[in-house]
């Protein structure tokens, strides 16, 4: 108890989370008379998980795309094809941001790369300032549920480690996220249509559509190759990541020449800072989880909670609340590696499908991107658009509420997550 309190204080003081987790594991092993070599041994287990190869490759691809002219081409293309719909530009923004976030792994890159393009465009098209700010800030977390977003991969990795309930594959998660992700875009699109400026529609121009398509011709196949390849069963996730990374590197460096060779080391370094940050936490939590399971903490936790709450619906409601609060304090990657090992056995105990649980977990934590005190999207947008956090929080509030509604729907309608994986 004192240990836990000490760790919490360390974490709140801003100690890197992998240090906090490793400290917990070190203490746990020490008091159970286990050789502390267990910690580096757990770290080395990272090399036993083939799926992890996908993480650095996708992260690099995402950073590379965000530094290139791809965001510009993506916005032009979607606008050319969807701009004629009422509220079109706003819907275009939502879709473009989702695609982009899926590739960049929801690290806030979307706001910097796409928000900067979309915000002036929205203002020019006559959307209200508050609406536009809310949209670009929210866009940073949209698309988290679409392949090949890193949180989906990471959840599957952790669930596989736990081995409770039925096995969860990355492919399952990629399929399960489709409908919930679309639901979010759909609800936000309705809101966009309602808030459209009086004259927002522009006629469809076949010429512009053709030009935009021609300009982006090398990047258009990308989602098709990745998603088609994975969903169609042509290649494994790590293979898709390898093909994408190589292809994007060649296209941006040699075909479009948006990125020079000299920029490459910096982009590599930035993307690997993210990957390193995630994987040192993963390694530390492999150790701490191992300790927790040895000490039977998940089982005892389940028994305690089960004695208090017997029905599934109450449990789901409390789960939503808990994850909402968790999301205000912890980022999505740390939450996955730290909290999933505790909650997944519990969810399985309440007969919730592990894949469904994963989607609930991620969708719920997505809200955390928009809540103070540590909603990362609020901070990035505040930095990028030079606005106070409070103003951005107010602007995102309606968007936040709509996302909350979709989280509730996702939680209580399992079919949204499970229908597609069940069909294939």
């Amino acid at each position, binding site marked *: 108890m004192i240990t836990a309190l000490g760790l919490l204080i*360390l*974490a*709140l*003081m*801003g*100690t*890197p*989370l*992998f*240090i906090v987790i*490793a*400290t917990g594991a*070190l203490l746990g092993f020490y008091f159970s008379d286990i*050789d*502390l*070599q267990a*910690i*580096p*041994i757990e*770290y*080395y287990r*990272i*090399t*036993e*998980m*083939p799926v*992890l*190869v996908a*993480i*650095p*490759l996708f992260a*690099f691809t995402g950073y590379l795309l965000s530094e290139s002219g791809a965001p510009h081409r993506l916005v032009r293309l979607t606008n050319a094809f969807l701009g004629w719909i009422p509220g079109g530009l706003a819907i275009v923004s939502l879709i473009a941001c989702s695609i982009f976030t899926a590739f960049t792994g929801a690290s806030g890159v979307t706001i910097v790369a796409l928000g900067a393009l979309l915000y002036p465009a929205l203002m020019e098209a006559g959307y209200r300032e508050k609406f536009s700010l809310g949209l670009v800030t929210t866009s940073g977390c949209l698309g988290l549920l679409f392949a090949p977003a890193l949180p989906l991969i990471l959840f599957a990795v952790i669930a596989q480690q736990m081995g409770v309930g039925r096995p969860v594959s990355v492919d399952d998660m990629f399929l399960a996220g489709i409908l919930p992700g679309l639901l979010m875009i759909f609800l936000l699109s309705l809101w966009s249509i309602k808030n459209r400026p009086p004259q927002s529609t522009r006629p469809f121009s076949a010429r512009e559509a053709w030009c935009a398509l021609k300009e982006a011709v090398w990047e258009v196949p990308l989602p098709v190759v990745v998603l088609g390849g994975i969903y169609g069963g042509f*290649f494994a996730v*790590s*293979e898709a*990541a*390898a*093909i994408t*990374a*190589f292809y994007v590197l060649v296209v941006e460096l040699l075909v479009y020449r948006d990125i020079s060779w000299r920029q*490459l*080391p910096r982009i*590599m*370094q930035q993307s*690997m*800072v*993210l*990957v*390193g*940050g*995630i*994987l*040192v936490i993963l*390694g530390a939590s492999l150790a701490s989880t191992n300790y927790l399971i040895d000490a039977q903490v998940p089982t005892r936790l389940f028994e305690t909670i089960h004695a208090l709450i017997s029905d599934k619906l109450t449990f789901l409601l409390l789960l939503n609340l808990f994850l909402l609060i968790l999301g205000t*304090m*912890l*980022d999505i*990657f740390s939450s996955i590696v730290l909290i999933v090992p505790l909650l997944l056995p519990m969810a399985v105990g309440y007969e919730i499908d592990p894949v469904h649980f994963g989607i609930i977990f991620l969708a719920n934590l997505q809200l955390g991107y928009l809540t103070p*005190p*540590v909603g990362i999207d609020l901070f990035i947008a505040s930095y990028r658009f030079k606005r106070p956090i409070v103003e951005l929080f107010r602007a995102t509030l309606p968007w936040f509420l709509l996302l909350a509604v979709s989280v509730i729907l996702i939680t209580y309608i399992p079919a949204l997550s499970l229908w597609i994986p069940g069909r294939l």
Partner: protein
Amino acid sequence: MDLPALAKRIHHWAVLVEDGILALLLTCMILLAFVQIALRNLAQTSLDWGDPLLRVMVLWVALAGAIAATREGNHIHMDILSRFLPERFHRPMRRLTDLFSAFICALIAWFAARMVIVEQGDGNIAFSGIPTWILELILPVGFCVMALRFLANALFLPQKELAK
């Protein structure tokens, strides 16, 4: 606080080496991963050391990235208290957490070194004649460098960080 000239020079070269290794590792990873798929699909064969090497490279690239993250004070952290505390507490608090992190990294590096020595004694082979202990070397080295980086941060807080 201005860094002494020697420390500055060490820092400069360390950054080059750290980032150089990182870029090299990632480049090799991308190429190797691609070659594996090309071979598998076009020639129905593959390098039998390719897949295990790729998995080890994930760990190496992760630690290289973590070292860069340490250098830039960019690790995933919660940072809640500092939002509520006045400015003058920030610096001592950063020092404290950096010192503590240096201690924990040094501890992990120590036990990782012992793990490597035990592994060397066992003489296990990972794949294609490469002994496992060589692949594990990144753990003691990586955590040792991180410990030094945290220590350096605690002693001379990076100017960039203070400006934030």
